Every structure is written in C-alpha cells, then in structure tokens.
C-alpha cells in the first residue's frame, strides 16, 4: 500500500463504521512547543487522519487563529526539521498529513523532505499556495516515496477544473466549504450541500470538508455529503483556552 492510500483507507474505515471521518488540525508546537507530541496523541484518539500545520511567517490563506498559532510556534523555534524529528521519534500510528506553505518545503529541499517525511510517518502533504499547475517538481519527489499531495477544491472552482482536481488528488479531496480564509464564521452557506455533492460525484477517493467547522450540527450536516470533516481553528481555540481537546473532538461526532 502506498503511503497516501493509508489516508484514504483510514477515512474509508470510518465510513464503513457508519461514522463521519474526523481530521483534526493543529499547528505543530502550539501553544507549547514541548507538548507537541502530547497534544498530537490526544487528538489522535478521535482523529482518523491528523493534519499537522508547519508554521509559516506569511500564511495568506489562513484566518487570525492560525496566523496567531503560526506566529507563536515560530517564536518558540518550531521548524519543519524539528517537526519531522519529533514525528520520527514518536509512536503515533494515525496517518499524518503535513500542511505547509511552499517556501519551508523549498528551503528543506524536496528530495530530502520526501525521504525524511516518509520515515517519520507522514503520508501526505497539503500545500495551500501550490496550485496543481505549479506542483510538478514537488509531486515528482513525493511520488518516489508514495506520499500524497492532497488537492483543494473551493466553491469558486469551475466544475471542469473541480473534476480534474478530484481525479488527481491523493489521500482525500479537500473541499473548502467557504470562499474565504480558514476559521470563518459560524454559519455554512446553504449551497455548500449541493457543492459537496458535486465534489463527491467526481471523487473516487474520500472527500473531506473543511474551513469554518465548529459545531456538532455542522459535522452532522456535512457528514451527509462528505466522508470526513477537517477541524482546525475551532480546535486550536479550545486548546489555547485550556479546554479538553479530545472531549471537544469527541463531542463533534455527536
């Protein structure tokens, strides 16, 4: 099995069990650098796949929560090197997807990154500032290790392009629910249901809905039209206020 197929398999298992797949996101080393693996282990209890954010100085697709967590992590000295070392030394067996803007990956070097990430238990990457047309070099390196590159689709993506992205995505298709940055408001636009049905129609791998997911009712609603949900900013806000992250995630699944 290729590494990216582990992601799809984990989400398919949730579907088979009659659950909505859960993909929690945390910024690595936030709020406290030394507690990275502890926090990650907590969210792995309910996460079918976990998304680990590599902090970047200029997160232009992210809202204030992830801007804040990224800034704090950088201040504490969290780097991509460090994250990969920590993951490699941990015994986490939940499939991990690394979310990173492109420049930290460029600075690391694609070939070394693919080799080191695969050894550390990473199964795929999400790169919000790397549209498919620019992804050739990174994909070539990731392919050598069977690592996936998850494609994002958005409500602003025309259907022919959306169909293409669903075909080439690996692990899952990341269906952005809103036109905007991460961590948005509390209401999902009603047309999100039709949009997710279109994504689902074109995808042969699991579809996960993300951006602005905060409430159990949203998870239940999105779960009828997608295989999984991604929860990032809302989870980070719970973690930074000292609330029980595992209980919050557990509660989301109703």
């Amino acid at each position, binding site marked *: 099995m290729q590494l990216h197929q582990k992601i799809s398999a984990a989400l398919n298992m949730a579907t088979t069990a009659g659950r909505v797949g859960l993909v929690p996101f945390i910024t690595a080393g936030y709020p406290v650098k030394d507690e990275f693996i502890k926090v990650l282990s907590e969210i792995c209890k309910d996460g079918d796949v976990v998304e680990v954010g590599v902090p970047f100085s200029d997160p232009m697709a992210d809202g204030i929560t992830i801007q804040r967590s990224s800034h704090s992590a950088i201040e504490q000295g969290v780097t991509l090197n460090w994250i990969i070392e920590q993951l490699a030394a941990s015994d986490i067996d939940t499939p991990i997807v690394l979310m990173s803007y492109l420049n930290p990956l460029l600075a690391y070097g694609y070939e070394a990154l693919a080799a080191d990430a695969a050894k550390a238990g990473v199964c795929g990457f999400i790169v919000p500032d790397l549209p498919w047309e620019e992804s050739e070099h990174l994909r070539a390196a990731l392919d050598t290790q069977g690592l996936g590159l998850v494609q994002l*689709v958005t409500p602003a993506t025309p259907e022919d392009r959306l169909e293409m992205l669903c075909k080439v995505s690996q692990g899952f298709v990341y269906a952005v629910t809103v036109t905007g940055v991460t961590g948005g408001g509390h209401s999902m636009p009603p047309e999100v249901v039709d949009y997710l049905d279109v994504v689902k129609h074109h995808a042969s791998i699991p579809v996960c809905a993300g951006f602005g997911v905060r409430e159990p009712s949203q998870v239940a609603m999105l779960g009828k039209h997608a295989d999984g949900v991604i929860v990032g900013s809302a989870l980070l806000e719970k973690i930074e206020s000292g609330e029980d992250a595992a209980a919050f995630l557990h509660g989301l699944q109703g």
Partner: protein
Amino acid sequence: MNETLVNMSDADRAEHLRKLIAGEYPDKRGRYGPFGGSYAPETLVTALKRLEQGIHEFLADDELQAELRRELKDWVGRPTALTHARGLSKRWGADVWLKREDLAHTGAHKINNALGQAFLAKKLGAKRVVAETGAGQHGVATAAACARVGIPCTVYMGAVDIERQAPNVDRMYQLGAKVVPVTSGDATLRAAIDEAFRNWVADPAETFYLLGSAVGPHPYPWLVQVLQSVIGTEARAQIIEAVGGLPDIAVACVGGGSNAIGLFHPMLADSGVEMLGIEAGGRGPDLGDNSATLAAGKPGVLHGTYSMLLYDADGQIQETHSVSAGLDYPGVGPEHALLKTIGRVTYQSITDDVALDALRECCAFEGILPAIESSHALAGAREWAKENPGKRILIGLSGRGDKDMPTLSKHMSFRDAAE
C-alpha cells in the same frame, strides 16, 4: 534550481533576454525563465485566469486605451518632464537627467499603474477594489484613481507604515478610501499584502485586487510592467530629443521593482544602455538590517511568485529594514530576478544614511525634494559616476519626498544633535 542559475551559459542568458525583448516572457505559465509563475490559493486560481483574459481584452480595446491615454495626459499630467540636473551634473562630473515621476498626479509613478488597473477593474465589472500600500504612495494613487473612475476602495496598510507615513494616510481618507491598519506579521508592506490577499480570497468574483508593485502571481508582474512602461518609453524619446542619443546608464530604485521595470523594460533592447537597480541597504549587510533582496536573497516563493527572496534556513520570510517604507519588502518582481540572473541589469544597494545624504544634495542643488526611495537611485548613480566620469546618466526619480517629512525631520534632528 540554484545550480541551474549559477551554471547558466552565455547562450542561455542571451536567449532569455531575446525572449523578454520579443514579448515571449512571461510565457503561458506566467514565467520569466525560471522565475514567476502563479503560486496562489485554489480560490484565486479562477480569478487570476479571468484577470489574465481581462487584461488581453483591455489591451486590445482601442477605445478604452484611447480613454486611458487621455486620462494619463489630462488627469495624471503625462508626459512627466525630463529635467537636466545641472547642479548634480557639475558636482558629479557627469551629464545627469532626471525622469520626473515626482511631478505625476499624487506625487509618484504609482499613479500610472493605479489608474490603468482601476480602468481594468471597471471593465471587468468589479464592485470594489482592495489594495495594499507600504509608503502610502500606492494607497493614495489607488484612492485617487478609484475616486476618478467611481469605484469604492479599501487600502490595507501596516501599522508601522501608518506611523511613518502619516500624511499619506490622511490623504487616502480625504480621497474617500477606507484604510485598514494591519498589525499581523511585521506590520509593514508584506503583512499588508498578506491581508489584501485574504480579503480578495473572501470575494474573488466581485473584488478587484489592485496590486501596486511588479510582484504577486501571474499576471500581476506583467500587468504592472505594461502599465509602468510609460516611464521608460517617454524617457527614451525625451532624452533622444534633448541630446540626440541614449543615456550610458539608466538607474532606478528597486523595492518590489515597479518603477525600475517601467524605466528599464522599454530600453532592454538598447544594448548600449547599462542598467543599475538600487536596493535598500538599510543599516547594513546583516540579515534583517536591509531589504536588499537581489543582493542577499535566494529563490523562493512569497505572495504567489517564485523570485529572489529574503528567508532563513527554515524558509521563514525575514523581516526587513529600510528608512524608506516603499523599499521595505523581502521580495522582488520575477522579471528583476531574471534580469539579474542574465546580467542585463546590475543591482547594488545603498544604505539609509547615504540615501538621505543624496536626498539633501538633490534638494540643495536641484531644488527638488525627492522621495527617500528615489534618493537611493540618486545615491547609486552618484557612486557610479565616481567610477565612470563624464557619462550620461538617466535617473528614475520615482516620487516626491513630501510624504517623508516626518521621517526626514526625525533624521535631521538626530544629525543636528550629533553635530
């Protein structure tokens, strides 16, 4: 990629230059050789394609282009003058000419781009314009252009820049723009661009992002070059008319690089014209003390383009320093990255103090108060003149220094106290 750049043969360099001159760059993928491209979030991919299509229609629309030319003449005040700098010529032992973008409406070259893009926004049916600004010149130009064409506008400006360019903030308000302070990141131009992108991502269908420099994802670097090339096209014709020949060198300051690309691009084919871009050397050569991207940077991706960039070993973008807000940016336009790589343009840096000294000299001997940004070009030209006596030098005087009075008062009083 680094090795490819270092090992580029002379034939490769010549071929890149040929393609640039022939208009084959940016190519279909928005690239200038290895640089450029479109590293934008998926939400913006379709908006950027629509923008590119819109630019082609806009450039082919003869009626609209004629209207834009009329506005450039009657409202902006173009062509701007080419002034023979008699005082500087005598002092430097050179023949110095100033392309006076400081005389353009709103006080800098920024208006050329802002007006053109505001026309484009109207044509594309945008409901609102967002823009970023560093020194405030692009913000003021955008506010004025939007008022002129009748479209609401919001300007994002770093909190640090709001403080050091206070007069421009008030001008933007008077011109009807909404100014939003940006406190995230380094609270300067780079953070303002991040925030403008975020705002655009929220409404890509009806918002037009009026980007102020030759940076960003394709097609922006190209669009800005096309709109700013009026500088070099005019200057070339004016100097030929004045002296019957071309300059030995053209000099311009480079932050993101819009005024420099506007001056240089129309003269790239004139092989006898040397070109010199001057970056902000800030307090000195250490990382974080300057904004000398081309001198100290390496290839990377920021704000949607692959170009030279100041970042650390972990890929984090570095905070920069310059006394001039307009040059205080860790990246540079992809066309400049190529021009440096192929050696068509030489890039050097000038420190804060030397730039301020050149500013005073221009005030005292030409009766012109240049922007601190433009003063970097003056200082760079002065140093070049020392090594190359008796040459004809064309300097892009990108803007006027009125907006810099708070900074100048501060630096002058420091100096007076020291003396």
